């Protein structure tokens, strides 16, 4: 065993320790420590990615040397390492670009608590990405829920508390269903680890009498995670939650937390149930229909939204729909498209959520469209970044959004079902058009002169570095999508092994 195989566990354990450490530090020190620490994690995870690419196979880390059917395991392959790396980079960018708002939005004595929560959240995110055990998944899922509620309510205004309560209630329903699903699966198979469970499920699925029960268990688990990640029609908490949180939190909640739930669902399908068994259940078709519903309804609601944050939040509902559509299409190309879109959307949405407060700041702290008129001229950098994010969302070539839409189109063609092909193509066309309506309208709005005196925003260059990283990653995904798709294919092959 190479030393590198310890790194996935390090990322979880060190994050937990850092959470405690930040609690004891002062606000500013906690921030510096968090930034330094996220950089360290990025190095560790990059090592894991390179290592798995070089050996060409995934490795399993056995906790406490208890072998397979009993112990607890962590598994690291290319796909996990890739997602963990993307999550950490986005987290770092969100912390870096949003700390000024954290300082103004939060009471000074609570700034260190914010970073403490972020570190605990990193631990939960990492654990959800690496875990090979469903019950560990449940425990860290709850930790993720609690910490995301925490980073929401640190901004103490009535609206965030209310948004947090609504968010928590839906999340608790989701966790309850997920737990019931896991328990039912445990009851049926006698295992919690994904690999032995997969073998047991394959045996059970051969028996037609057991299939309905199995479908029910997987269905309950799926509904639970769909509620938590905000699949249509469970997306109504999104605008309040993302709209009132402090910018870093909005970026992290929309681009990382909901994606971690989706990845856990994906991993459960791939590793614990098996795609061939999932294919026999009607679940994927339901996900496809709900995904398409989300793409259309989310965008329609975004058009009607009255402020920019609500609009961006509702566009998240549509984008989550895309990801579920990819899972619903199935096949290697469908799953590849879904994973690619997880990355593309996470990068783009964090960019947008970190830019809108800068635009609002030069418009009298007002997020309504009317006030934002001309804000792209008053704060040039933020205007440019917003435009890039919006163009990527619409699906203009050279940005990530285009590459992922192309993948969805290819996946639909490869699904060999004309109904699915027509449905998906129509949904892509309608959704792209709707996206274009509200994003281009906003771009025009922020660049329209309004005769107010042009007081330019001056800000430190530090803010632009994380934004440039996000833009660079976005363009990289758009121009060199084949690199990432190749990695995803390798990861998916390792899942099957």
């Amino acid at each position, binding site marked *: 065993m190479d030393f590198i195989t310890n790194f996935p566990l390090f990322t979880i354990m060190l994050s937990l320790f850092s959470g405690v450490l930040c609690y004891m530090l002062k606000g500013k020190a906690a921030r510096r420590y968090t930034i330094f620490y996220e950089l360290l994690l990025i190095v560790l995870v990059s090592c894991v990615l390179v290592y798995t690419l070089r050996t060409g196979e995934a490795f399993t880390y056995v906790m406490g040397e208890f072998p397979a059917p009993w112990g607890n395991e962590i598994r690291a392959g290319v796909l996990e390492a890739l997602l963990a790396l993307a999550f950490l980079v986005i987290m770092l960018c969100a912390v870096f670009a949003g700390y000024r708002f954290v300082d103004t939005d939060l009471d000074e004595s609570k700034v260190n608590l914010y970073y403490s929560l972020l570190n605990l959240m990193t631990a939960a995110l990492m654990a959800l990405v690496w875990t090979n055990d469903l019950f560990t998944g449940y425990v860290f899922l709850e930790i993720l829920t*609690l910490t995301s509620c925490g980073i929401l309510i640190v901004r103490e205004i009535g*609206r965030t*508390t209310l948004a947090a309560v*609504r968010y*928590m209630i839906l999340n608790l329903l989701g966790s*309850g269903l997920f737990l019931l699903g896991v*328990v039912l699966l445990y009851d049926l198979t006698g295992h919690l680890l994904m690999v032995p469970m997969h073998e047991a499920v394959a045996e059970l699925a051969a028996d037609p009498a057991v299939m309905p029960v199995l479908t029910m268990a997987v269905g309950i688990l799926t509904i639970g995670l769909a509620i938590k990640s905000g699949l249509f029609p469970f997306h109504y908490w999104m605008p309040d939650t993302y709209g009132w949180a402090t910018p870093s939190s909005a970026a992290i909640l929309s681009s990382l937390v909901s994606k971690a739930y989706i990845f856990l669902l994906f991993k459960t399908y791939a590793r614990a149930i098996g795609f061939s068994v999932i294919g026999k259940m009607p679940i994927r078709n339901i996900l496809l229909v709900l995904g398409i519903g989300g793409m259309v309804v989310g965008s329609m609601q975004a058009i009607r939204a009255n402020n920019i944050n609500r609009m961006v939040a509702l566009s998240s509902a549509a984008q989550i729909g895309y990801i579920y559509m990819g899972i619903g299409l199935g096949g290697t190309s469908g799953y590849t498209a879904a994973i690619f879109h997880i990355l593309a959307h996470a990068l783009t949405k964090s960019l947008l959520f970190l830019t809108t407060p800068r635009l609002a700041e030069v418009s009298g702290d007002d997020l309504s469209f009317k006030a934002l008129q001309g804000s792209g001229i008053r704060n040039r950098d933020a205007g440019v970044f917003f435009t890039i994010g919006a163009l990527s969302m619409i699906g203009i070539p050279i940005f990530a959004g285009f590459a992922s839409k192309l993948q969805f189109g290819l996946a639909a063609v490869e699904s060999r079902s004309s109904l699915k092909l027509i449905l998906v193509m129509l949904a892509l066309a309608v959704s792209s058009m709707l996206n274009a309506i509200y994003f281009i309208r906003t771009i025009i709005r922020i660049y329209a002169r309004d005769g107010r005196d042009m007081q330019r925003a001056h800000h430190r260059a530090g803010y632009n570095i994380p934004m440039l990283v996000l833009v660079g990653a976005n363009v990289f995904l758009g121009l060199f999508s084949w690199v990432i798709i190749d990695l995803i294919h390798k990861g998916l092959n390792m899942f099957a092994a």
Partner: protein
Amino acid sequence: MIENLLINNEEAVAIILFGIGFTMLLFQRNLIKKLIGMNIMDSGVFLFLASMGYIGGRKAPIITDGVTSRTAYINPVPAGLVLTGIVVSVSVTAIMLSLTIRLYKRYHTLDLDRIYVLSKHQTEDR
């Protein structure tokens, strides 16, 4: 159908409890009742797990009188899972209660719909 339910009465009760809790958490407007619903829902799952883990006629998995045959003892894992689940449930309840207190202090009501209406008329939060 009925016979199956009678044989598996513990599981049936557990699922009914889960259903009661789930609908309470979803449809009750009062925050405290919602939280009670959440606890009932979790208890349903724990009952399900505990009853699945128990095998009639076997003992707790602590070796007594030198008997090491695995047919003499029950599986300890479900009990461990219940314990973990209870810890999670308690901490979630604590957070939700503290949020409820905060909302009550601000809006002087526990009715979620009413709080929502009140918050819409609020202007001090930009």
